[in-house]
């Protein structure tokens, strides 16, 4: 899957382009001051600093009220499908991954749910990597992570000055490609990815945003690392968990490449293998210091 970056200042332009193709829901403050997925107007400010919404986006796919059938000439008929695309911008990776669990029930198997299927088909999920996980978060316990793109069509990652968009599905790829055709330009992958790849931590031709090692505050991971039934086990831990207890270090030891393996030793932390032997600060360099704990 391919990726590209847009400047943060271009986010509004990006959303405007989406608006031209359908209805756009993006994070905005509601009347109570909470950040919620809202149908934002072009003049409304989009909020990117939030942990998660009070209501999950599940309601976009399984609405509380839905017309299931109508009657025409005494015969039951299916209401016509939504006539425009819905874009959900800013869904957190945990909620995007949760859609895969819903898919198991409502899409897969011998009988799919036609109403869920068509909302799923006409909705584009643009996940926003999580830079503010909370102590109560448990995405890693169900196979996900703050930078996991499973279940989304596009994963957006907030970088220093840019927003990196990575296509996760054919639909996301189309969207990315369309925009590239429209704007006629595609910026190269961000420099820090290239720099990290030069250090040999991974395949240089496959720029991988995960190697940026998303900064996490100390997340007191719970001991029950049971994975949800049926969810695929990720090939490797996608998330850089730098402050780990010894227990978690043992559990989450990343699959190390055969070369360039180093460790960060810290007095109060377990020795956690980190690719390339770069210091932690170097790995974190370039990330937006959105969390007060991380700004130092």
């Amino acid at each position, binding site marked *: 899957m391919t990726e590209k970056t847009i400047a943060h200042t271009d986010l509004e332009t990006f959303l405007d382009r989406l608006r031209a193709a359908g209805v756009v829901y993006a994070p905005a403050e509601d009347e109570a001051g909470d950040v919620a997925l809202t149908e934002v107007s072009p003049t409304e400010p989009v909020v990117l600093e939030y942990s998660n919404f009070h209501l999950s986006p599940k309601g976009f796919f399984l609405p509380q009220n839905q017309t299931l059938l109508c009657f025409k000439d*005494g*015969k*039951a008929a*299916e209401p016509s499908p939504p006539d425009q695309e819905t874009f959900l911008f800013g869904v957190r990776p945990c909620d995007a991954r949760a859609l895969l669990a819903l898919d198991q*029930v409502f899409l897969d*198997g011998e*009988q799919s*749910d*036609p109403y869920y299927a068509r909302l799923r088909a006409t909705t584009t999920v643009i996940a926003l990597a999580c830079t503010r996980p909370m102590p109560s978060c448990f995405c890693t316990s169900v196979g996900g992570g703050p930078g996991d793109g499973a279940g989304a069509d596009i994963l957006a990652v907030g970088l220093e000055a840019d927003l990196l968009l990575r296509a996760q599905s054919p639909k996301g790829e189309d969207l990315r490609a369309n925009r590239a055709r429209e704007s006629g330009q595609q910026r190269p992958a961000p420099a820090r990815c290239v720099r990290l790849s030069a250090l040999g931590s991974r395949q240089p031709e496959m720029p991988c945003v995960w190697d940026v090692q998303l900064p996490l505050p100390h997340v007191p991971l719970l001991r029950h690392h049971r994975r949800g039934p049926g969810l695929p086990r990720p090939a490797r831990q996608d998330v850089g968990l730098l402050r780990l207890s010894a227990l978690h270090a043992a559990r989450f030891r990343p699959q190390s490449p055969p070369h360039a393996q180093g460790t960060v030793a810290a007095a109060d932390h377990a020795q956690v293998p980190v690719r390339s032997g770069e210091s932690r600060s170097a790995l974190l360099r370039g990330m937006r210091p959105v969390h007060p704990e991380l700004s130092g």
Partner: protein
Amino acid sequence: MSRNPYLPYPAHIEEVVVENEARDIKTFRLAFEDLDSAAAFRHLPGQFAELSLPGVGEAPFGIASSPTEADYLLFTVKRVGLFTTELHSLEPGAGIGVRGPMGRPFPWDRMAGKDLVIVGGGFAFTTLRAAIKYILDPAHRGDFGSVLVIYGARAPGELMYRRELAEWQGRDDIQVHLTVDKADEGWTQHEGVVTSVLEALKPSSENALALACGPPIMIKFTLVSLHALGFPDDAVILSLEMRMKCGIGKCGRCNIGSKYVCKDGPVFTHEELRALPAEY
């Protein structure tokens, strides 16, 4: 794309038969409005369907007719709540929606070549009626061994399908024993619960399967009696009563543990039920 499973087939009521003296159990004979619907609806005894009335709602009912009764569907419904009260008020000609067939039928492959012991109680006899009609059809009767039916009700006036029961009792390829909890004047058959009849008749469990449908208390003691007669748990076939909603294993209204009554049932063997958590 396959047909939307939430859309009901249009049908209408052709005939309404009052089944008991209390007049709260009626059998509705339904016919589809068009040939396509009739052709698409293919069921086996033991399955159920969702009946719907516009503006009222939808509720699941076991199909009381056999697929060998090709021109119509029968549903025997006791008046207990909103939907059934509305249904009971309908006259022939009224429109109704039918969604289905749904669920797993009785295990007809396993039943072939076996002697069958069919135990029913009260108005749970509906899908057993469908099963008996299916078995007695000339095209199928040769597939099964002996057939013993024990059907009990509270009182003689509560026995359903009385005309058919009398007809079956006149046949020599099926044994039908009727029993009532409390006999009245003129009742000449068994008096007592179905298990007393079962224990008196002592049907052999060799190469046999038992089908039991009835109120929980009847099932509880019937299971004990069948066990004493030597029926293993996987030879006892039960049907669960549950308020299924979507009927296709999506809504989660009827699940017991990891099983959906609507999709994996409603027919289960006793062995399968023992493996489920005791939620029902």
